[in-house]
């Protein structure tokens, strides 16, 4: 069964450093999402792509976060510089339409 792939699974970094996360969606899924989940809360959308275009990045802190999906397939989310409050689970999801399928996530710890 096809799955959304994410790497790394865990990342520990010091504040002010740069970090990057990678996501490979299910083949054929045109829509890709990056969510952030803080413990005890539901996931919140950071950015949504339709193919290579950003559809919604209204909740993305653009002073430090960036996301790209250059060829409309895999995607990278970057944080520079990382802050203590960025510690969270970063989830990638993809969708053909409607239901979104999530990857295993990247657990980021900023020290």
């Amino acid at each position, binding site marked *: 069964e096809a799955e959304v792939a994410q790497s790394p699974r865990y990342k520990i970094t010091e504040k002010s450093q740069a970090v990057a996360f990678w996501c490979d969606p299910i083949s054929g899924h045109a829509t890709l999402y990056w969510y952030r989940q803080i413990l005890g809360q539901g996931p919140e959308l950071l950015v949504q792509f339709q193919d290579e275009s950003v*559809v*919604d990045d209204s909740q993305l802190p653009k002073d430090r976060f960036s996301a790209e999906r250059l060829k409309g397939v895999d995607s990278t989310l970057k944080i520079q510089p990382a802050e203590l409050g960025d510690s969270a689970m970063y989830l990638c999801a993809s969708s053909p339409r409607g239901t979104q399928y999530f990857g295993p996530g990247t657990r980021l710890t900023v020290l």
Partner: protein
Amino acid sequence: DQQVKQNSPSLSVQEGRISILNCDYTNSMFDYFLWYKKYPAEGPTFLISISSIKDKNEDGRFTVFLNKSAKHLSLHIVPSQPGDSAVYFCAALGGTSYGKLTFGQGTILTVHP
């Protein structure tokens, strides 16, 4: 503004009994609802969904009920199994944000043997 709410942070159920997880929403533009299950250190796994044109959808042990007038949905798990112990998230699609899932805070379900 929490548009999707799961007011019960946790639920404890005996194995074999029914688990009922509840979810309320405020945005009348939501037209598609989903339930996800999440284990620690893993991503959410899709369980079951329901369109706003229906009031019930069933898949094996899982049934989702939608009451549009009350803006309320519930997930029933019968019979509950210890492996069902996880965090359950209710999520909604629709409104002005195309494709964006709005999640509730989650309910921790514990099924005791």
